[in-house]
């Protein structure tokens, strides 16, 4: 089992979600987040004062899935979220030791 975490521009969330569903990936968790990578922030002006906003709104998608769906999921996310500009986001992949369905105590891959 793998966990895929993808940090995205909020405006790309719907497109990524639809692409994942189309790729046959069911179940995901969406977190609203703030952050920045190399992109840095932007400046705002209020009554002549300049404010630097360096933590920008992001969304983070978390998926836990079977090993052989890995490339399909990654391609779906990239296909929907890439604009080619700085700030498109990042994808992280890690191993998952165990999954448990709370409803009936199923364990392992059947719990996904």
């Amino acid at each position, binding site marked *: 089992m793998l966990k895929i975490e993808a940090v995205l521009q909020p405006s790309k969330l719907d497109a990524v979600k639809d692409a994942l569903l189309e790729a046959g990936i069911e179940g995901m968790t969406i977190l609203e987040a703030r952050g920045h990578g190399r992109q840095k922030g932007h400046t*705002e*002006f*209020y*009554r*002549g*004062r*300049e*404010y*630097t*906003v360096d933590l920008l709104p992001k969304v983070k998608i978390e998926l836990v899935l079977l090993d052989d769906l890995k490339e399909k999921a990654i391609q779906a996310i990239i296909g929907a979220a890439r604009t080619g500009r700085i700030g498109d986001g990042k994808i992280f992949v890690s191993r998952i030791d165990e999954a448990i369905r709370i409803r009936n105590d199923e364990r392992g891959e059947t719990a996904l």
Partner: protein
Amino acid sequence: MSNHARLLSLLPAMVIFSPAALAQTPASAPVTQAQISALQQAVVNAQSAGDNAWMLVSAALVLLMTGPGLALFYGGLVRKKNILGTMMQSFAMMGLVTIIWAICGYSLAFGHGNAFVGGFEHLFLRGVTLTPNTDYAATIPEQTYMVYQLMFAIITPALITGAFAERMKFSAMAVFLSLWSVFVYCPMAHMVWGVGGLLNSTGGHIPSLDFAGGTVVHVTSGVSALVTCIFLGKRIGYPQTNMPPHSMVLSFIGACLLWVGWFGFNAGSALGASPLATSAFINTHFAAAAAALGWTIAEWIHNGKPTALGAISGAVAGLVAITPASGFVQPFPALLIGLIAGAFCSFMVFEVKSRLRYDDSLDAFGVHGAGGTLGALLTGLFATSAINSIYGKGVPTGAIDGHWGQELNQLAGVGIAWSISIVGTLVLLFVVDRVIGLRVSPEQEAEGLDLSQHGEEGYDLNS
């Protein structure tokens, strides 16, 4: 209704009164003295009904400026942990000042007294009845005049709250501003508008022109705001930490409500549904529009972008500056006053505040103190007897009529407003700080006024 019916029933008598009608209908009954008296009374009643309707609407419009207008305008400009605390400061004035006004405020402002403060004859509204007080407004019940003036007394201390936003205890704020309304607002209102007041434009020693409260409302509140924010010190983290407005949308709605409410403030100050009210209404609107433009252009040049906050701040600055002039100037000078005020107040906020490093958090001084002072001086320049012959028919009013001496009177009015505000505010702050303590603790300031002062949150999106 009954007045109108009576007036109509007397119309035949009016027709008979003209010689031509007399010739045609010689057989009609002669007009009696009683009928003429009844007719005169009906005319008086009709004018009173019209004026009273406008003044009651105006009073409601001026209250609309404080809540929700100012409460939203200021509320949107603070961080979200302080929105309720900020709105409550304006709302508290709606309650507290009303009670003070009924007990002693109206008497101290509009009682006879001396040149500096009113007397005690109207304590607990004694003698303030439903018949007109000819000293102030001969066509409306004195209680209408009293409640209209009350709305001004409410918004004035509420304006000060913008300077000390996000850091004063609710208890200290309530006591400080209650005392302020008695010891600073009432004397200033008396000097400018009260019978026998020092600066009263009709009969005062130094006739100073202030149609709707440029000095009484805006200079006093703006200068007191400056004194208060310096006395209190900066917010923790200012100016290193970002403290941007949390909702420009709320501020936008608030500013637009202020603009609309200001028609009651300025056009209502004609104290009747007269042509002078129309003049003040138009001047008010023109100045707001021009000042929004003035601030926006200045900001566009200065920062490269025309912001929404700049446009609405400019409109408020223009409304402030036209307030003393609204019943004395022609429409084009009103546009000019607005344009100058928008550019001047933006300069006060952009440059002067950051150079002098005081934390006038929501720019109560930069807009009201600076705009009010500028407006009072420009009133002396542009006031004309063509609009309001306050010194008599054809007697020059302001510098534009050739009466440059008026500018000195305006300077005196501004000087006295600055002086009473600085001294009164300093003394009251010192006393309240000793007895209650003005500032919340650093922990409470970090937590926000909503939770620390009121035990509530403005936004609970998880509930």
